């Protein structure tokens, strides 16, 4: 232990300076583009709406013009909670469907001959070559004649379609790194095909599953274009609600409140899942 500690100090002040310099750009980026906007949002959520959109001055006639009105509004009307719940349900369904569809595909790519893998990965990301909205309009053409348009089904289908690559890529990156000797060892020690998957491949791919799920779940929560284009009137999600406050109702404080509450909900969820997925030592 003492040896390792002294080795770490061997680099001296030069090494810690390098480390500090290397971590500076991402730290600055996060401060400027995540923390600062989040704080601006938090500030806006306590303010009053301006007469023609925007925000009313925070200090007027020598008085602070701040309140918890928007929060009272949110918790006072069950409709917002319902939209939040529905959004989480849609996000969870989308994530689950993406996982079920992506896992076999990612596994197949990871187990295919090395010289084919790059091409297959390219095929996965190829849809990004065409515009996102055009691809959603294509779904209108597909679903329209089947009379499936403007339904929860259409929303989920669009969500799954758009987010599938974000599940495949982290899963593939994880599965591709698995040492094939582990599966051979498991087989050698008596594990059949299904057991090898359940006991070796699946647990080792959990980090990939978590990463892919986060990359699907969180964007789906904020997505407003798909429900707007493919969904019916009853299919609006948090994303639509927030967009509406800023662009149509011109109630920036309420929009900011909804954004903040969404961020808090996502962070809570991420915390819970990190806690649930922590490595554990248990006896056999």
């Amino acid at each position, binding site marked *: 232990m003492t040896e390792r500690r002294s080795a770490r100090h061997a680099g001296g002040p030069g090494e810690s300076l390098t480390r500090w310099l290397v971590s500076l750009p991402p730290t600055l980026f996060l401060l400027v583009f995540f923390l600062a906007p989040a704080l601006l949002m938090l500030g806006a959520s306590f303010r009053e709406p301006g007469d023609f959109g925007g925000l009313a001055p925070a200090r007027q006639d020598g008085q602070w013009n701040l309140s918890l009105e928007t929060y009272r509004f949110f918790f006072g009307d069950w409709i917002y909670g319902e939209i939040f719940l529905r959004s989480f349900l849609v996000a969870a369904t989308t994530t689950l469907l993406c996982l079920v569809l992506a896992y076999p595909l990612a596994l197949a790519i990871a187990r295919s001959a090395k010289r084919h893998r790059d091409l297959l990965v390219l095929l996965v990301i190829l849809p990004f070559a065409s515009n996102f909205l055009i691809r959603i309009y294509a779904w209108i053409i597909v679903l329209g004649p089947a009379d499936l348009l403007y339904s929860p089904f259409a929303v989920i289908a669009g969500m799954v379609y758009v987010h599938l690559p974000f599940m495949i890529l982290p899963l593939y990156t994880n599965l591709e790194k698995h040492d094939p000797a582990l599966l051979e*060892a498991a087989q050698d*020690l008596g594990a059949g095909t299904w057991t090898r998957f359940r006991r070796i491949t699946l647990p*080792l791919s959990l980090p990939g599953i978590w990463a892919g799920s986060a990359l699907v779940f969180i964007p789906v929560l904020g997505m407003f274009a798909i429900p707007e284009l493919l969904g019916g009137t009853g299919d609006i999600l948090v994303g639509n609600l927030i967009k509406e406050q800023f662009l149509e109702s011109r109630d920036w404080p309420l929009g900011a409140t909804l954004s903040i509450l969404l961020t808090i909900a996502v962070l809570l969820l991420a915390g819970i899942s990190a806690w649930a997925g922590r490595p554990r030592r248990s006896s056999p």
Partner: protein
Amino acid sequence: MALLEIRNVSRRFGDLKALDDVSLSIEAGEFFTLVGPSGCGKTTLLRIIAGFDEPDGGELLLDGRPLAGIPPEKRPVHTVFQSYALFPHLTVAQNVAFPLEMAGTGHAEIRRRLDEALGLVDLADKARQFPHELSGGQKQRVALARSLINKPRLLLLDEPLAALDAKLREQIQGELIALQREVGITFVFVTHSQQEALALSHRIAVMNKGRLEQIGAPQEIYGYPRNRFVADFIGTVNLLPVEVREVTADHLRLFAAGLGEIVGALAVDARPGQRGALALRPEQIRIVARGEARALENHFHGVVRDHLYLGDVTVYKIALDNGVVLEALLANSLPGPASFLERGEAVDVDWRLGAGVFLHD
């Protein structure tokens, strides 16, 4: 009846003959080693025994029953992989208990056998650690315990010591021998290290280019190599070009150009007039000061060409009168000088009757 019977097994990969008509049998309780240079087919043979590969021709019998078509998970054969292949997400105890769990062994029985197996490899205090928290030698022992816990008929070891440093390798060699003796399970050990093969095995099979060159006990393989490949691969050897003059009941009379007659060599099948080489081990050659050679026969003039100090011994290169350079060893029985003989010093070399093996071309 042999435990494992390998009959005329062949395996091709495209144009490459990985295994070419290999037949051998392994007895129960043996420590059997397959040794050869990389690409000689030893690992292919191991994978075929384990069931990860099927032969193109020939058959394998385990306890008299053919193994063909039985998948690896159904064979009472376990492998210790070169990389150990420990499951990184499972603790040492979970790793070692894995085969028992697969076999559906009861909880209480697993507990008992686990304690026994971890005790066997001296890892009882590491049961709750994860593989990445262990040293190379400890991982090795976990892999061994995991493969031995449900008592396979046959344990295959694929270069398990290759990843360890020299000192640790020597220590684990000793542990392996003791372990094999204790559990009584048949070991089939694959290595490219002739030193490991000699140190560990009851019997050794030397392989080259998919073929078996020789099978025998370590002292047979080292003392009586059957051909140039075996003589050269196992240990260090001097090959002195000779021609057979006379074959008598117990030895050969050979002629070496520029040196004269050599007597006392051994050979399995030699005929007068045959050409070949006399294989002499460095430690069989004695170096003495010029004019002091005592033996009546097999002593020749030479000059010290070079020496290599290895600590325990010094290797001398002696150029004979006919230009052939022999390697000979002298133990450094006194500390201090790196060599007792100077470069360019005139010496005599000789060897005992019975030393050296004649290998025909």
